[in-house]
């Protein structure tokens, strides 16, 4: 995701820099001033920024392509319907990843079921009911920014102490999902808040001037208009949750059996990859296969969200 953005940005910049160099050549024939250097092509030094920018763009794209290509190259052979639908055998060296997919889905489900309502609610509170410069708003925002920067291993330890032991949930999908919810919340809240703040104030004034209540304004006008922003937060959150390993080792555990309930321990995809590549000799092939599944899932979620946001924007 971040890499993609980088590519787009540098491409835009490179186009801009080209435009900046253009006036040198076409302006010269018409130029009335005799002092201006007239050259048919831009001087070689001015090409340097263009080359640099293009090089950076290529480098970023190439890195992304290399990683994805490597995973596809090594993992594609493993992927089959059987791989997706059977349980792992022999510590994961053989067999498939069905229980791991189910556990990942459940952990993600718990995480979103908790963090989405809480996150959007907090964002609404911050954006609509708290003045931007009030001490409360500043305090919450600062805390969220700090929270967003906390290393995931710390969240893992917190989840282990609080959810697994204090609340007695043990090593379970529930503990893991709740820990992930804590991790995802800051991202979700901040981007939802930005989305709401990006809605033009005209709508709020127009609604108030027509005597619409704040609830109606929020549900009928502001939230629909903020959907693209909410989706960005959701995608970033899902991305972070799906890729998380450290926090889950301490909370949802290692067990690779098919989970029977939310109180069972379950192994997430990222942990499966970690385990196969670090602890199981000869597990590399299936590790690559699992990594490919993870990357494809993330790209699918990304693409779907982008498409929904796009369609939503063009609806009106």
């Amino acid at each position, binding site marked *: 995701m971040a890499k993609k953005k980088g590519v787009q940005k540098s491409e835009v910049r490179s186009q801009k820099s080209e435009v900046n160099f253009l006036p040198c050549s076409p302006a010269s024939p018409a130029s009335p001033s005799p002092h201006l250097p007239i050259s048919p092509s831009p001087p070689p030094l001015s090409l340097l920024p263009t080359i640099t920018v293009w090089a950076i763009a290529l480098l970023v794209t190439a890195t992304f392509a290399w990683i994805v290509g490597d995973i596809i190259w090594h993992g594609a052979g493993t992927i089959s319907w059987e791989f997706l639908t059977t349980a792992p055998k022999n510590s994961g060296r053989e067999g498939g990843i069905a229980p791991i997919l189910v556990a990942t889905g459940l952990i993600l489900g718990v995480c979103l079921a908790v963090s989405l309502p809480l996150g959007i609610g907090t964002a609404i509170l911050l954006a609509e009911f708290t003045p931007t410069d009030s001490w409360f708003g500043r305090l919450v925002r600062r805390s969220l920014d700090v929270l967003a920067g906390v290393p995931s291993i710390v969240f893992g330890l917190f989840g282990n102490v609080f959810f697994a032991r204090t609340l007695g949930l043990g090593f379970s999908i529930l503990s893991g999902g709740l820990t992930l919810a804590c991790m995802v919340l800051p991202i979700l809240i901040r981007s939802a808040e930005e989305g709401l703040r990006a809605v*033009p104030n*005209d709508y709020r*004034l127009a609604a*108030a*001037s*027509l*005597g*619409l209540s704040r609830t109606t304004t929020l549900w009928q*006008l502001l939230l629909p208009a903020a959907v693209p922003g909410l989706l960005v937060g959701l995608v970033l959150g899902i991305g972070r949750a799906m890729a998380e390993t450290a926090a889950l080792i301490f909370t949802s555990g290692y067990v690779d059996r098919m989970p029977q309930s939310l109180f069972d321990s379950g192994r997430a995809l990222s942990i499966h990859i970690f385990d196969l590549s670090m602890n199981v000799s000869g597990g590399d092939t299936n590790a690559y296969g699992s990594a490919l599944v993870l990357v494809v899932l993330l790209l699918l979620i990304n693409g779907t969200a982008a498409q929904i946001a796009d369609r939503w924007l063009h609806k*009106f």
Partner: protein
Amino acid sequence: MKTSLNSTPSVRPCTPTPSHHQETFIQTERLSLRYGCKTAFCDVNLSIPVGCITALVGPSGCGKSSFLCCLNRLTDLIPCCQVSGKVRLGKLDILNPKIDPIALRRRVSLISQKPNPFPLSIWQNIALPLKEHGLRNREEIDRIVEQSLRDVGLWDEVKDRLKDSALALSGGQQQRLCIARALALKPEALLLDEPCSALDPISSSVVEDLIVSLKHHYTLLIVTHNLAQARRIADYVACFWVKDDSGQLIECGSAEQVFADPQSPITAAYVNGIRG
């Protein structure tokens, strides 16, 4: 800043509009508004007569738009904005915190400078406020939507695409839609904040004709920078000016009187195009 706050004695109190048979719709008494420590306008005494067009004229930053916002309590939405004084609507003092601003805004509706239709369909733009105010009958809603679109002369232009986005309309159409949306709620007064300034000349004249046609059914208060427009459409004119760092009402009266025989030298210079 202190001087501006204490400068009340120098202000010549503007006598309410000299109308003998005209009923007053809304009346302000020593109305002042401050944003933090900046005074937008102070001590405005003004009566708005029923069923007429009253134009507020004056240079930018003299508090005309802020004054308008006070009249339907949209100032509630602006952070650190303090209003003092009285605004009488009939027997009510609408600045009283016990007054329900939502009911007030149904009676006194504001049309803003930039057309601001909701990002919904044309039909929904008018239907949403109606539904909000308890109308559930679909046929009744359809009837009111059609009626208010006819009132603003938009029906024939949009009747085949009521389900299309309101944002696809032209600026002038959007502004008329906003007026229709307000009219659908059957307000008593419309506050228009430079309703034509964001429009091209043709749309502007359409909206202007619309405003004139609404005059007998509604009380209209219009802020305008366009003196020619005020001259064309207004029955009464109130002139604001910046004095001592804050906006003040320097003259008000019937349009003929203010334009032909202004009492204040500043108004005279302004309406004759010497200043402002």
